[in-house]
């Protein structure tokens, strides 16, 4: 098994983040409406190929996020859900928070890509609080996991102590129960199906056995598992 640094130092970690983001981009089809969470998910936008027409939703009230502004374009009244200044593409729409979550909750967003602290083998997600630590709030995550047609969690496969973040059962308080359809890590891609967790892709540098060894959750291996997939 290849050793990777989880801490954010030097190029290695950045490469890992980029690797996950690049793989996650493949989940997005042309014509999709997509919500990207804060953190690594936001990076996915950088890798969307030009032949795809994708509309990015920001839950604070924007459909059609554009690139970050130049100094001259900077507008305090135009931010994304991470409170970063952004721009808007032609054909973008502004709306209020109630409409924004009507859109999300009502199943109109095709794909939501979120970060995760823990995911369980039945698709539970924990990504908003650690007991004993300062809790800042869940923001829109609890609504997003229920609304999007496909909820994808992207995260490191193991935590900084080398422990699996994909568990039989989440230990942290949940964000949503049975809400995750696909997990993409630096090492593998797994689907949560009606028969439990299934390994469908293994990243370069890892074997199926490596993945099973570093995953606490029960997991079957797809007959069509793709090796050296990304």
């Amino acid at each position: 098994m290849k050793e990777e640094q989880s801490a954010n130092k030097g190029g290695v970690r950045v490469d890992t983040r980029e690797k996950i983001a690049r793989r996650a981009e493949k989940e997005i089809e042309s014509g999709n409406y997509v919500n990207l969470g804060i953190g690594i998910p936001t990076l996915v936008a950088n890798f969307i190929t030009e032949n795809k027409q994708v509309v990015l939703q920001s839950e604070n009230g924007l459909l059609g996020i554009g690139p970050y502004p130049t100094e001259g374009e900077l507008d305090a009244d135009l931010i994304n859900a991470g409170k970063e200044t952004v721009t808007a593409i032609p054909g973008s729409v502004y709306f209020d928070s109630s409409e924004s979550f009507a859109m999300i909750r009502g199943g109109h967003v095709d794909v939501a890509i979120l970060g995760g602290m823990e995911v369980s083998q039945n698709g539970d997600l924990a990504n908003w609080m650690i007991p004993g630590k300062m809790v800042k709030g869940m923001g829109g995550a609890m609504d997003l996991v229920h609304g999007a047609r496909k909820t994808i969690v992207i995260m490191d496969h193991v935590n900084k102590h080398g422990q699996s973040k994909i568990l039989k059962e989440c230990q942290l308080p949940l964000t949503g129960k049975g809400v995750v359809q696909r997990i993409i890590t630096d090492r593998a891609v797994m689907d949560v199906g009606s028969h439990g967790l299934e390994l469908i892709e293994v990243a370069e540098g890892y074997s199926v056995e490596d993945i099973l060894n570093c995953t606490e959750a029960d997991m079957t291996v797809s007959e069509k598992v793709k090796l050296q997939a990304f």
Partner: protein
Amino acid sequence: MKKIYSDFNEAVSGIKDGMTLMVGGFGLCGIPENLIKALADSRVTDLTVISNNCGVDDWGLGLLLKNKQIKKIIGSYVGENKEFERQMLAGEIEVELTPQGTLAEKIRAGGAGIPAFFTPAGVGTPIADGKEVREFNGKEYLLEESLTADFSLIRAWKADKMGNLIYNKTARNFNPMIAAAGKITIAEVEEIVETGDLDSDFIHSPGIYVQALIQGNQEKRIERRTVRQ
């Protein structure tokens, strides 16, 4: 024709100790900054504040936090400042965290006369504690009750003299629902225009939701200045 204030202190003078306030904005974007400053000056206390966020250390609702004017805050993401963290850990402030979409819908319901609704957000999480869970079409939902306020403080881009409002870009956010959910809604606006100058087809908040207007200059501080080269 609506009441038009020229003095922010006078505009907030009806707000008394112990009242429930809603304040528009997402982060520092679209907040009624001059109304908040006047409220900080007023030193009214024991406020319950409903707002998606709670400002930063020296701006927005953070100014009220610093003065210990807030007894309880209902929001979805509140920890962007150290004083908040200190008060929370010291048990000096009560915090009710609410998923953002649920918060938006609870406020919308409050303005719309809907006392309660079912929503999927929070099922199976700590948010569900003590709430009714019911299944509809094979999926579980939580019962959530609506929110209203004694006063709503919002920011809009333009108002006409009948109180009809339009908002600019993502500064709209929670403002329209908060406008409708307040018994008394005061709109801080960038510009007041003559009645008839706004297009009837494109009003974001009909004047029926607005009790008073005040024009002000906003600093419009940016929380995360992100630029490309």
